[in-house]
């Protein structure tokens, strides 16, 4: 590999997007930002997938009148795959935003660590187990004030 063609920049861009997205998912504390990071990572993966069909000096895979026979075209399959993957991503993102709205109504926060602690408490309450090791102990002092809005207001 003595000299890299400039087209490799596309690859660097796609993989960079995946890296930014995954890093954002692991590092951000606000759940909405985590979701945005997921969207970025998906964009990177889609870009990488569409690049797999790249050809030098090729045109879009559409037969136009007057096109000379034997024109090189790029691979149509990855384009169709990415179209599918993008639409799948959109559906999941819309659903995720709706769930986020309900989470914010329910808990009054979108901070990942606070929510993790509150989810743990909620699950213990749901199961009728107190915090800590002793199953019989009372619920103890709550680490966070209970949010004003509860579920059941859909």
């Amino acid at each position: 590999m003595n000299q890299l063609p400039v087209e490799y920049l596309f690859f660097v861009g796609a993989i960079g997007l995946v890296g930014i997205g995954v890093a954002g998912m692991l590092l951000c504390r606000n759940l909405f930002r985590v979701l945005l990071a997921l969207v970025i990572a998906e964009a990177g993966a889609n870009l990488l997938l569409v690049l797999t069909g790249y050809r030098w000096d090729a045109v879009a895979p559409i037969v136009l009148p007057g096109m000379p026979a034997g024109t090189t075209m790029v691979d149509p399959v990855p384009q169709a795959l990415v179209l599918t993957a993008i639409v799948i991503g959109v559906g999941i993102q819309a659903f995720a935003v709706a769930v986020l709205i309900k989470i914010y109504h329910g808990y009054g926060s979108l901070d990942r660590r606070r929510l993790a602690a509150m989810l743990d408490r909620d699950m213990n309450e749901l199961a009728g187990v107190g915090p800590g090791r002793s199953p019989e102990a009372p619920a103890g002092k709550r680490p966070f004030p209970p949010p004003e809005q509860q579920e059941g207001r859909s």
Partner: protein
Amino acid sequence: MRNLISLLFVGGLVFLLLVLTLQAPFAEGPMLVGKGILQQGTEETGTANLVTSVVLGYRGYDTLGELSILFTAALALGVVLGRRRPEAPRDLEAGLVLRASSDLLFPLLLVVGLYIILHGHLTPGGGFQGGVILAAAFFLPVLARPSQRISHAGLMALEALAGAAFIIIGLLAMRHGGQFLQPLLDKGQLGSLLSGGTLPLLYIAVGVKVGAELAGLLVRLGDAEADS
């Protein structure tokens, strides 16, 4: 500590992918399936746009799955957000600029959306792209005049009909002795509007379904904002 591990993981992933893609046969890959489709695609499906022949022909079954995912997401979103209370306050009407431009844009978007759907087998575009434009056309008036609502039940029925139409076109092919989703009808003259057999019909179903679904998603999300 956790952050450090995360960064290491991301760095490793990026490095690995970079090394792999630099080694991979970029732009000279085998492209076995792609070559086959480029050679036979126009004859087998009769569409000038080969991406369409892949989306609706060779991988039409994937498209059915994709439509189902959008439908499922809309359904699950409905489960999450629930029904809107009738007494919930509505947003105020938007200003003159938005109202006037939404009135102007609505017919334009409608025409562009329909054009893109109908020419999906000839030019770049198709049911998904056109459907998104249709959804925008119907969502813009809702933004401008929040007191006018689009009926959820109507959208749901439209979605159901379009999805069922896609499947029924596929099943009709089975009745005629073919496989599920096999293209029917005459392939027509390559490049003319009435070509590609049943593929344009499938794309119309896709366009209507995507439009209704995305409009429904947006309207429901808008409702959820309004009653908080």
